């Protein structure tokens, strides 16, 4: 009987092949560029260009070869070392009871209606599998906004009543949101972690199919050496043109990239923060996050905790997998270009912090690479900008050189050597690396007729890829400038000062667009004028970037349009399988959002303020008080402070209080009861509510 090849050898071989391809491709492209610069020696500007090109090209190469590997994996139809295909290990708990899994939804000032509609859809989908008894739901609220807080409590109660979920669907709001999301999860683990073998972490806009949840638990049970399995969340449900284009791109190209990532990362994969299952005991043992010494941006609390937790698990010898072939995992994306940039702003600081972690003790090589890739997802933008500026300057310097045809006593002219072929090759190689994955993804559709139809047929999908490519070329320079601004602001410890990201569909107005993109347009006009006047040859190469910047305002506004998003759908453009044949869990979510079938009468109407309702309505007041954590009565100083707020509320009304002050009032049970009593003991005219 032939022995199956050793997985360790196979894993090593895969990684060797992958990194060899990345290295060789980078060296070839670099060699071409060196051959252009070398003949008359390297100027400092040329050395800078070579350095930047090496970094940026190797970054593109990793992405390209990942997609290429993914292409072959999908084309051949299987990956023998995917976690879903591996034979089971020896279970470590032969006599252990069936596992219990906690489904965690950490939330922070989110749209409660959407959050609970999503949870209900997941619950419904899980119930359909007949495996509901193995799962508990936790809504882990870090919400600070008093109105949203009260709304969450009511929706939670409504969900419990409607789904008979007492003792299975839980809710808690943390008094202090220490360490944000990672602190929120840590609070769960340290308080209730002992009850569960696994936790499935969701995001506020996550949706997962019941079958997928059950399969995740099954895989964890089969492989006790695995601490975390990440599923690839597919973006869904948005209607704006911007989001539909992104949904299409993520869906079509994303499956190839995730297959490729799994090809070379295998059991040393990464954690993306949600839509993943985690074995709780190793998470408890190894994922307590320290506060990093020093000041922000590299010190302080660890912001992008997910990468770090995966690296810590790997450091302790546990495996982390990306189940690229597990379907039924969804998320929602920002609806507009500006919201997308706002989300980048939040993520940017955490990713830059990874630069420090990449050089910390004990992490394995692939974890360090994950950290560096996290850094590069944002650092690439300022580097590209620098590369463009350096190229422009170099081109300008070239135009200033006078050509000399006769040297010394030579009577024959020495003609200048043309490097047009080499430069064109460098450009073509770079463009191939950037755009070939799109073509490969399209080719994969030829293999699967069901999928082809789901993407709108070969013609529709091809047209969509072309339009998506044009759109990404137009928006790339804008995102480059946004991200450069964020990176610089973070490094200089300056706040960028943007309002919170809006998750729901909405359109970008003219004023908002001008405010966000006015600077981009001006930069585009200045760069265009300068290059046209001083380096005309460079200007024409530069036009895609200039066009993106110059059109930033209209592109941002038009792409936020829901009418255009729906129109493109009717034309069969940017279709995804989730749009063409929505899975039940997404249909249930849509139904839940469109119908208001609340069990609690108090939810059938929308009052102007849930905060006021918590003061006035006897039921809402009692429910809220019953959910407040037990704590020491406030001290004298605090009582005086609360007293002052009560007087302010009585005399000037709730509008005079900040959200934080309102929260303070309803976070104290005695104050809440007193306000309730004050309201009911006075004629309404005397209470300014």
């Amino acid at each position, binding site marked *: 009987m032939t022995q199956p090849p050793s997985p360790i050898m196979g894993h090593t071989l895969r990684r060797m092949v992958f990194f060899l391809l990345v290295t060789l491709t980078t060296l070839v492209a670099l060699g071409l560029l060196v051959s252009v610069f070398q003949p008359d020696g390297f100027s400092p500007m040329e050395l800078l260009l070579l350095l930047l090109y090496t970094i940026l090209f190797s970054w593109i190469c990793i992405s390209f070869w990942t997609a290429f590997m993914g292409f072959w994996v999908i084309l051949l139809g299987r990956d023998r070392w995917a976690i879903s295909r591996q034979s089971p290990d020896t279970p470590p708990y032969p006599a252990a009871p069936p596992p219990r899994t906690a489904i965690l939804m950490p939330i922070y000032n989110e749209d409660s209606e959407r959050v609970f509609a999503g949870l209900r859809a997941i619950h419904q989908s899980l119930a359909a599998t007949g495996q509901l008894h193995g799962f*508990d739901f936790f809504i882990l609220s870090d919400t600070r906004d008093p109105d949203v807080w009260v709304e969450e409590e009511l929706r*939670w*109660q409504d969900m*419990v*009543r409607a789904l008979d979920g*007492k*003792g299975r669907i*839980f*809710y*808690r709001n943390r008094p202090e949101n220490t360490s944000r999301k990672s602190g929120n999860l*840590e609070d769960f*683990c*340290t*308080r*209730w*972690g*002992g*009850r569960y073998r696994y936790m499935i972490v969701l995001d506020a806009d996550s949706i997962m199919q019941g079958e997928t949840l059950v399969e995740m638990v099954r895989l964890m049970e089969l492989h006790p050496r695995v601490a975390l399995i990440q599923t690839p969340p597919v973006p869904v449900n948005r209607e704006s043109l911007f989001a539909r284009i992104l949904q299409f791109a993520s869906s079509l190209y994303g499956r190839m990239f995730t297959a490729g990532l799994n090809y070379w990362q295998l059991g040393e994969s990464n954690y993306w923060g949600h839509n993943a299952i985690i074995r*709780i*005991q190793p*998470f*408890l*043992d*190894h*994922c*307590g*996050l*320290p*506060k*990093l010494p020093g000041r922000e941006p590299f010190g302080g609390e660890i912001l992008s905790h997910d990468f*770090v937790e995966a690296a*810590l698990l790997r450091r302790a010898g546990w495996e982390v997998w990306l189940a690229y072939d597990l379907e039924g995992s969804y998320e929602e994306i920002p609806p507009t270009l500006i919201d997308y940039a706002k989300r980048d702003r939040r993520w940017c600081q955490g990713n830059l912090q990874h630069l*420090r*972690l990449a*050089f*910390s*003790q004990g992490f394995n090589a692939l974890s360090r690479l994950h950290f560096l890739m996290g850094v590069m997802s944002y650092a690439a933008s300022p580097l590209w900008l620098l590369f463009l500026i350096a190229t422009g300057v170099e081109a300008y310097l070239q135009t200033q050189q006078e050509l000399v045809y006769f040297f010394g006593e030579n009577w024959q002219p020495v003609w200048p050597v043309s490097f047009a072929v080499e430069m064109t090759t460098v450009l073509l190689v770079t463009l191939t690396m950037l755009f070939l994955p799109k073509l490969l993804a399209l080719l994969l559709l030829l293999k699967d007729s069901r999928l082809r139809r789901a993407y709108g047929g070969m013609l529709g999908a091809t047209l969509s890829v072309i339009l998506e490519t044009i759109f990404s070329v137009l928006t790339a320079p804008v995102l480059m400038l946004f991200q450069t601004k964020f990176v610089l602001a973070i490094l200089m410890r300056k706040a960028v000062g943007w309002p919170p990201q809006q998750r729901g569909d909405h359109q970008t107005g003219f004023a908002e667009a001008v405010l966000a993109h006015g600077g981009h347009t001006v930069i585009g006009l200045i760069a265009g004028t300068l290059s046209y006047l001083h380096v005309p040859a460079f200007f024409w190469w530069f036009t895609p970037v200039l066009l993106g910047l110059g059109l930033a305002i209209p592109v941002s506004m038009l792409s936020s349009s829901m009418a255009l998003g729906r129109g493109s759908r009717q034309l069969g453009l940017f279709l995804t399988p989730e749009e063409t044949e929505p899975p039940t869990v997404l249909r249930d979510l849509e139904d839940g959002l469109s119908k208001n079938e609340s069990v*609690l*009468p108090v939810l059938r109407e929308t009052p102007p303020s849930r905060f006021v309702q918590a003061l006035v*309505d*006897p*039921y809402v007041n*009692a*429910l809220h*008080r*019953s*959910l407040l954590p*037990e704590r020491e009565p406030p001290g004298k100083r605090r009582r005086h402070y609360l007293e002052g707020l009560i007087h302010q509320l009585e005399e000037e009304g709730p509008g005079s209080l900040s959200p934080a002050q309102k929260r303070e009032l309803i976070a104290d*049970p005695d104050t809440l*009861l*007193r306000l*309730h*009593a*004050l309201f*009911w*003991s*006075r*004629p309404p005219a005397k209470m300014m509510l």
Partner: protein
Amino acid sequence: MDRRPVNTLRSSLAAPFGEPLLESLKAYWAALGVSDPNLALALSEQTLRRLPDFPAEGEFAARTIIAAGELLDDWLAAALDLPRPSPALTAARAALLSGAVPDWPAALFAPPGAAGIALDRLRAAIAEPTPPPSPGVMPAQRIEPVWKRS
């Protein structure tokens, strides 16, 4: 239930504050779900009767509202055998007011033994926000730069 005549109370307690006090109490009982005006009046009387025992701080009218809630809590604590004061009792009050027991005054002020179904419904409706604790220890990990000696 204690159904002593309301007039006595008006003379001894409510008189200095007049009708508005009784009206606000009745309105409050109505907001709690007591739709029968006679029952609301009787409960208001009973509420006012509790006030001499009430802590003499805060505004008197507000104290009557709190007393009404306390009266309800007394009854709930006895019916459900709950300690008072306790978060469970507040949760029971919330369950009662949530509509889980339709027309709760009729059901709960029924003769002893006849409130069984209503009480069962009430128990089932009491919120259980979190499970019993089962704590785990999560020590902070050491993350040191490679150039720092461990």
